[in-house]
């Protein structure tokens, strides 16, 4: 057979033998759909569309910080007080703002002028919003790492969890509408938690958490769990508590000190530590924040309000000065009319008590899951009993809890009311009509989707169920619908502008019930495992 080509052969559309191509190397990791990246892209498009949405004063706060860090030397950062929104985040965050401000100055130099109060040109809005969207990539990376670090059998579950965190309505509402940089910091937190899975990652986990603390000190709430876990699992032998790994202790101690030193060292050198601390920890604020975070004190004040109504019949004494304190809804000192007032000391000792209880278990059983559980419980205790808690702090519970929510169905059962209550409690942050459909539709969509998916993915518990929350949870979730309708619509129609505090009070009391129930449910799971 000659190999010459005839015209006929060329025209002939013979099916050509399939070229054998080397198959793309099958990754050992099975792809779950949709991938994290796909969700990031779609979510990012929605967030870009939300650029002109409502923004709270936090937008101006961050713009002011851009201006402070750009136009002043570091030793004046924590003294500058032209704007009422002084810099009150730790130094790494200030450095982050400084980095951003370098770019910002190129885009709109008026943005980085400290005297330009409430400046919000379109480039400023676009730049600041874009910085949140871009910095969220850190969360994406952290979640990617988290899924990759999961043992093979549970990867499908952890993929679902990662998606739920990535698409969390909390981040949409707080970061992309209200305006903050939480998603980035939770990215660092998740990185650190995921690193703690393996013994080799413990050191870097600790360092990352120290870095996180220097970004935002609210994570101090979680620090006890870190401290105990690292001490127990890294510094001491797992089998024998009395045999410390000296080298590990030194490594951890030196690196954590180095992190803090890099952050606070310069300020200590300038002798500004006192000033810095007074900015970071303003103790002069009241028990409840403007919109009552859904914690114990919300229920406490609700009961107090109820008692005011029935006090005349029960012959209780009413403190007349306190009658209008909560209703004012201002950041200030809260006092109660019937019930005894709460002191910061009481808050602190309650928090500490519940911390200790969670940490004892962690000390006795230093596994990764117990560690995440302890983180969650630390978040719970600080949120439920803390002094002047923001409703945004509920993410401190939800995010760590998400990581273990699919451990089995009893965990999921206590996660459900938390997700419902936690996210609904964020609603009062956005009170404009334009954002109302966004927050409600997104949150409801998220709840339907992920509670359904979680329900299908959570394995049955390996032990007897001890706590039956299901019926309650169903009823509880159902109540949320009339509640949302009342707060958004019916109240307006009934009272117009009177009793503005009522919807807020109902929301926070309702949410507080959910958070507390889920806390009890989780404690049972945690302690019985």
């Amino acid at each position: 057979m000659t190999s010459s080509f005839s015209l006929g052969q060329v025209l002939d559309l013979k099916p050509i033998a399939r070229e054998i191509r080397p198959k793309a190397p099958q990754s050992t990791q099975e792809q779950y759909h949709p991938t994290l990246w796909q969700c990031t892209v779609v979510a990012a498009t929605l967030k870009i569309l939300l650029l002109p949405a409502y923004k709270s004063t936090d937008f101006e706060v961050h713009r002011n910080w851009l201006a402070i860090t750009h136009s002043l030397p570091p030793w004046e950062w924590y003294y500058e007080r032209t704007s009422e929104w002084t810099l009150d985040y730790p130094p790494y965050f200030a450095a982050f703002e400084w980095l951003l401000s370098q770019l910002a100055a190129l885009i709109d130099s008026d943005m980085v002028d400290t005297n330009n109060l409430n400046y919000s040109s379109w480039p400023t809005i676009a730049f600041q919003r874009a910085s949140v969207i871009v910095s969220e990539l850190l969360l994406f990376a952290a979640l990617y790492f988290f899924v990759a670090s999961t043992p093979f059998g549970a990867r499908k579950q952890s993929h679902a969890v990662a998606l739920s965190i990535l698409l969390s309505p909390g981040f949409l509402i707080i970061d992309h509408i209200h305006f903050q940089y939480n998603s980035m910091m939770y990215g660092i937190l998740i990185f650190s938690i995921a690193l703690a899975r393996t013994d080799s990652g413990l050191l870097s986990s600790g360092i990352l958490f120290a870095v996180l603390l220097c970004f935002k000190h609210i994570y101090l709430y979680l620090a006890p769990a870190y401290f105990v876990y690292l001490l127990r699992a890294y510094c001491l032998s797992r089998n024998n508590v009395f045999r410390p790994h000296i080298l590990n202790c030194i490594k951890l101690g030196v690196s954590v000190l180095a992190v803090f030193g890099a952050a606070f060292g310069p300020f200590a050198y300038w002798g500004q530590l006192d000033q810095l601390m007074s900015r970071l920890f303003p103790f002069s604020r009241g028990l409840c924040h403007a919109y009552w975070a859904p914690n114990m004190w919300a229920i406490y004040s609700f009961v107090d309000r109820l008692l005011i109504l029935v006090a005349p019949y029960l012959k209780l004494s009413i403190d007349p000065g306190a009658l209008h304190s909560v209703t004012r809804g201002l950041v200030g000192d809260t006092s109660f009319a019937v019930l005894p007032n709460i002191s910061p000391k009481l808050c602190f000792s309650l928090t500490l008590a519940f911390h200790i209880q969670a940490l004892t278990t962690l000390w006795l059983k230093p596994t990764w899951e117990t560690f995440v559980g302890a983180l969650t419980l630390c978040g719970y205790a600080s949120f439920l009993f803390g002094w002047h808690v923001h409703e945004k702090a509920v993410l401190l519970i939800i995010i760590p809890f998400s990581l273990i929510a699919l451990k089995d169905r009893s965990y999921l059962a206590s996660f459900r009311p938390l997700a419902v209550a936690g996210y609904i409690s964020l609603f009062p942050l956005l009170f404009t009509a334009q954002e109302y459909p966004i927050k409600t539709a997104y949150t409801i969509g998220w709840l339907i989707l992920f509670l359904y998916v979680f329900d299908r993915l959570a394995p049955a518990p390996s032990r007897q169920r001890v706590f039956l929350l299901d019926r309650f949870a169903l009823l509880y979730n159902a109540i949320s619908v009339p509640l949302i309708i009342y707060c958004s619509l019916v109240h307006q129609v009934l009272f117009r502008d009177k009793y503005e505090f009522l919807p807020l009070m109902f929301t926070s009391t309702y949410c507080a019930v959910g958070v507390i129930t889920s806390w009890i449910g989780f404690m049972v799971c945690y302690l019985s495992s």
Partner: protein
Amino acid sequence: MSQASTPHKPRKKKRQLVRSNTLTDIARVEPGSDSINPEFNLVSFLLPARGKSQWISIPLILIFTGLFRWATGIWGYSGQGIPPMHGDFEAQRHWMEVTQHTPVSMWYFYDLPYWGLDYPPLTAYHSWVCGKIGTLINPEWFALFTSRGYESPDLKVYMRATVIISEYLVYVAALIIFIRHYSRSQGIGTTAANTALVAILMQPATMLIDHGHFQYNTVMLGFVIASLSSIYANRPLWSCIYFVLALGFKQMALYYAPAIFAYLLGSSLTPRLRISRLLAIAIITILAFAAVLAPLMAGTLYDLYRGFDLPYRPPPAFLAQRRITLDPKTTTGALTLQLSQMIHRIFPFARGLFEDKVANFWCTLHTFYKLHRLESYIQLPRLSAYFTFMTILPSMSVLFGCPRPSLIPYAFASCAFGFFLFSFQVHEKSILLPLLPMTLLLSSKKGLSKEYRAWIGFANAVAVYTMFPLLRRDGLRTPYTVLSLLWSWLLGLPPLSMSCYYDPDLPNVPGRPLAPDELRTLTKIFHWWFYAVMGFWHLLAAFAEPPATKPDLWVVVNACVGCVGFVVCYVWCTWKLILESGLLNDYFEDTAKYIDSLMGGEEVWGVGEQQDGVEKEENAEDTIVVQSPGSGEKATPKGKGKGGKKRR
């Protein structure tokens, strides 16, 4: 994926998933393994819903696509902050004001120069309802006269809400039902149908115009979809009613009228004459029209009865020209006058051939050859009517000749493209009309194959591109960019993905026979070239100043480029219509026989299947494409001319 370690007891028994044959269009199933790789990004989001309840997936789809709509709505609208006339937003608000505060008989007469009502009565009723509810919330929004040019964040939220609620009540509801019927008739699976649903809902052009620019097109389009859906559900009378509603909402629905007329007429005549059906259709249509007009007429009569004096000056132009005078004091006079005024308002023949810059034939022609030079030979409206008639003739005649429901989307698209390209007084927003049936094809049997996706994506890309100058005026550049890129990313289309044009599994060798859903190389080159041109245009518009003598140069270039694209889309739709109708099957067979006899007379493929069964809808195309193993290597018959586009 149960784990060995945990005692996983699934609550519900897992259903065995039945793989529909369209799954291969949207996902690649690895042989021998359970893993399914989506063909394009959108499928990734819907694959996990496989085998799950539609009661979960459909609400979720509606919630999340609704979010994108609302988020688009927080951007600017037409004429925001541009006194004195503002734009479409003010027009709609003004109609709510007028219908609130003037008697019904005045609606088509009230202060015409300031956004006088120029849509059919259903729009007026809709405005009345929206205005009533709005007045309850805040009377200032629609106060007579004082509210002109009223702008406030609250009003914007309210108006946006009316759009989205109207859309969900009509368009979305109709679309869901349509896809149920249509996918069943086309035999496609749930996942593919849901994918198509999301793709259609996320169509950037419709979203940007209705929720960005501000209009209520989706209500009209929704009625059209409902009309289509009734045809698939085999309820032709309902189809008439819905179509009349569409016409009654916006006269633009007339773009489809010849096609649906041809279909209904054809279906009453073939396969046998059905007088009763024909009569029923005629009567129902007339009754529906009467019902749409009834409130307007009743209102006029009531006003007459009350003795309300109508300022009937000036009389409609076409009456004045014919020297017809009507006495508004008599019943018939008042009714005729109202009717003629309404028609006069709805069809403004007095205006020019085209307004602004629109990507149709006349505007493009005008760029190169000034149209007034033609005016001495022929009246332009008449010329445009001839051209339009010629271009809608193919779709009408095919649909009349073989009135099969499966052909309707093609025919609608082709017919509407004909109108858009050649008819009178076309707006750039009218491109939504041809675009809708073409995009609906995504839910057809081959809708998610590479070929269809590439073409539908192309049409959508060109459409949204031609609206860019309009959207830029409204401050919608960012939503434009984001939404169109998102859509193309979801569907695996350029500029973000080439997956429609390239299959990594196929060898890259010249002369390889085309895969079943592969585009011809020339088509691919044309598409890429076109995308490149559109991209380059954006660069020009962003960074280059047009010459001082021609400040509108970029906009004109945009319209001309768009026109070329639409002509090609028109040709594609028409050609697909003809192919799908099977009218050319005989022709292809003859050619095939002829070629085969030339090549040595091997067995002619496809004949066996062709003979049994006259109405072989489903296989109409497959029979001429499927190559039997023995003779497959013989040359594919060369269809003449545009046949190249379709031959595989």
